[in-house]
């Protein structure tokens, strides 16, 4: 491949802007997704009171406030050298389940699911949640809204506020649960379990029963043989809130398992000159460009990454579904990008079952929810955001003010893989310079599966999911542009 050094599009960060480079024959050589990276966080954080970080970082992203809130709170636990009481950990995890419930429901029914439920060939105007409801029925729509709201309500009861939680403190949480709240959460959770089961059945009936869809899932453009990463508990089962970071290889075998405090020993970040986004990779393997396979240190996180990196789910129904997925898709590891959607629903079921275990735990109403903090120092915290592993790393000065702060967010962990998935989808559809109109759809499906979160929180005009694909010929001259909603 020719190296691109100076390029007209260098550092042109935009929402969903994709550049595709063709070779001399007009076939795809490479493709890059450019997403806006928020800058200046370290400087912004410096000198602030450490205990403000869970509130500040929950505002970084309108999508994952809960994940940032707890990655930050856990970094503070470590920085203040305090282990929260077991009841506080359970309350945090319960709240975390609420977040997964609403987040995964939103993604499946509103964002990723329409491609499958309505069909990848359906016109763009139909591939949305209204199309899903047209196909599945209005009653389903009501259930979707209801259960998404339940997830949010569970989060709000525990977090104190609907969108931006205020409960996480170093050493514990600020608020426990009373008996009425327990009853309320239990009732909602029970309903959520049924809804998660239903969602998997819907996926089975509409997607898995259709050979065309299964073939699409297993088709070449959507295969990527990377390493996988996710948090696991002591039995190597998926955990969203706590545990060790486990990395498995392309056959599902453990490559390494480590404590988050050692992440810098295992993960490095590669920098490309055309983007501010960094590309994390496994140090022991090394950076080998935008390639997959065992010699490339690129790994994937998120629902499929987590399921691949674990040996099962810690709750019975989800574990059954876990086994079914791997059996259906040919064993470990599942390398099909579109299987992210299936994995997401299995995680939804796990989140509901785990929430039920936690709410029924007698300790959940305990009032011992905070331990006193020690002296300020350095701390690293990790959680699984809905879209993948999220790490907060702070260094505090002797007064408990932030001296240094670094975040590795989920979408960054996936950045190498997302670029390759887009490239491969484009390869499948651009041949000898001929660009098919289905390109935007295929490319969008490739990166939607990761549920990437392009940091930004405002409204822009005009709207819709903005996507611009610029195709450059072998002389790096703009050859064609395809746009939607730009």
């Amino acid at each position, binding site marked *: 491949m020719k190296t691109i050094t100076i390029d007209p599009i260098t550092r042109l960060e935009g929402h969903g802007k994709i550049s595709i480079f063709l070779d001399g024959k007009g076939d795809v050589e490479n493709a890059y997704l450019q997403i806006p990276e928020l800058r200046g966080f370290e400087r912004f954080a410096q000198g602030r009171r450490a205990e403000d970080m869970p509130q*500040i970082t929950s*505002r970084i992203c309108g*999508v994952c406030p809960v994940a940032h809130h707890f990655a930050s709170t856990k970094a503070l636990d470590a920085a203040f050298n305090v282990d929260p009481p077991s009841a506080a950990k359970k309350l945090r995890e319960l709240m975390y389940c609420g977040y997964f419930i609403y987040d995964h429901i*939103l993604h499946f029914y509103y964002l990723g699911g329409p491609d499958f439920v309505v069909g990848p060939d359906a016109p763009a105007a139909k591939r949305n949640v209204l199309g899903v409801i047209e196909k599945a029925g209005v009653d389903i729509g009501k259930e979707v809204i209801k259960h998404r709201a339940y997830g*949010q309500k569970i989060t709000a009861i525990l977090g104190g506020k609907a969108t931006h939680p205020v409960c996480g403190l170093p050493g514990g949480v600020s608020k426990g649960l009373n008996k009425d709240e327990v009853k309320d959460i239990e009732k909602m959770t029970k309903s959520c379990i049924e809804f998660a089961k239903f969602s998997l059945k819907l996926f089975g009936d509409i997607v898995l029963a259709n050979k065309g869809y299964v073939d699409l899932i297993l088709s070449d453009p959507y295969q990527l043989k990377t390493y996988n990463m996710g948090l696991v508990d002591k039995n190597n089962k998926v955990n969203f809130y706590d545990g060790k970071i486990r990395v498995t290889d392309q056959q599902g075998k453990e490559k390494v398992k480590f404590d988050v405090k050692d992440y810098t020993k295992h993960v490095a970040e590669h920098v490309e000159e055309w983007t501010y986004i960094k590309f994390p990779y496994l140090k022991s393997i090394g950076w080998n460009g935008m390639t997959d396979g065992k010699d490339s240190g690129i790994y994937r996180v998120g629902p499929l990454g987590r399921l691949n990196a674990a040996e099962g789910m810690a709750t019975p129904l989800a574990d059954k579904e876990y086994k079914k997925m791997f059996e259906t898709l040919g064993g470990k590891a599942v390398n099909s990008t579109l299987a992210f959607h299936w994995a997401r629903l299995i995680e939804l079921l796990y989140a509901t079952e785990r929430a039920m275990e936690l709410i029924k735990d007698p300790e959940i109403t305990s009032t011992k929810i905070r331990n006193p903090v020690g002296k300020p120092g350095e701390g690293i915290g990790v959680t699984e955001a809905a879209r993948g592993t999220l790490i907060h790393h702070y260094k505090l000065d002797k007064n408990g003010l932030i001296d240094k702060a670094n975040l590795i967010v989920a979408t960054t962990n996936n950045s190498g893989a997302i670029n390759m998935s887009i490239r491969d989808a484009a390869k499948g559809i651009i041949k000898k310079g001929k660009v098919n109109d289905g390109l935007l759809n295929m490319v969008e499906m490739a990166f939607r599966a990761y549920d990437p979160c392009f940091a930004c929180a405002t*409204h*822009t005009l005009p709207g819709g999911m903005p996507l611009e694909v610029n195709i450059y010929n072998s002389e790096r001259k703009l050859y064609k542009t395809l746009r939607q909603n730009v």
Partner: protein
Amino acid sequence: MKTIILGVGNQILGDDGVGIHVVNALKEKIQSPDITIEEAVTGGMNLLELLLGYDKAIIVDAVKTENGVNGEVKRIPLGNFSTMHSCNPHDVSLIEAIEMAKKMGEERIPKEIIVIGVLMKEIPCEFGEKLSSKIAAAVPKAVDMTLSELGKNLSKNNLT
């Protein structure tokens, strides 16, 4: 008539947070049991849920346009947006959310939804709490426009 004024944006992302700055200023000016003033660092579905049950909603937000003058303030009825999205792929647009809610028989959607938009060419991607000078100058304009939007619903004794 129950009205909600929502400042939308992210106050740790410079100019993006202008809507929050505007509602903070409004909080000091308005005291009325019929008017709710809130911040919302959110979009789409969550935004809709905050609006439900009010007769009228006024959304104050940064609006990115191709041709607009930085710092210009415009009153835009929601119907005039062909689509409006919350600028991240993990959500639906407010308009999509409203359409869906209507289809589900939701009856609590405000009859009137007005956007007071502070126009800007670029939404910042750098952390900071301060507004740029042009956008800061737009805050009083947006405050006045919101007050006149409230107009007849606001008697003099509601203003402090």
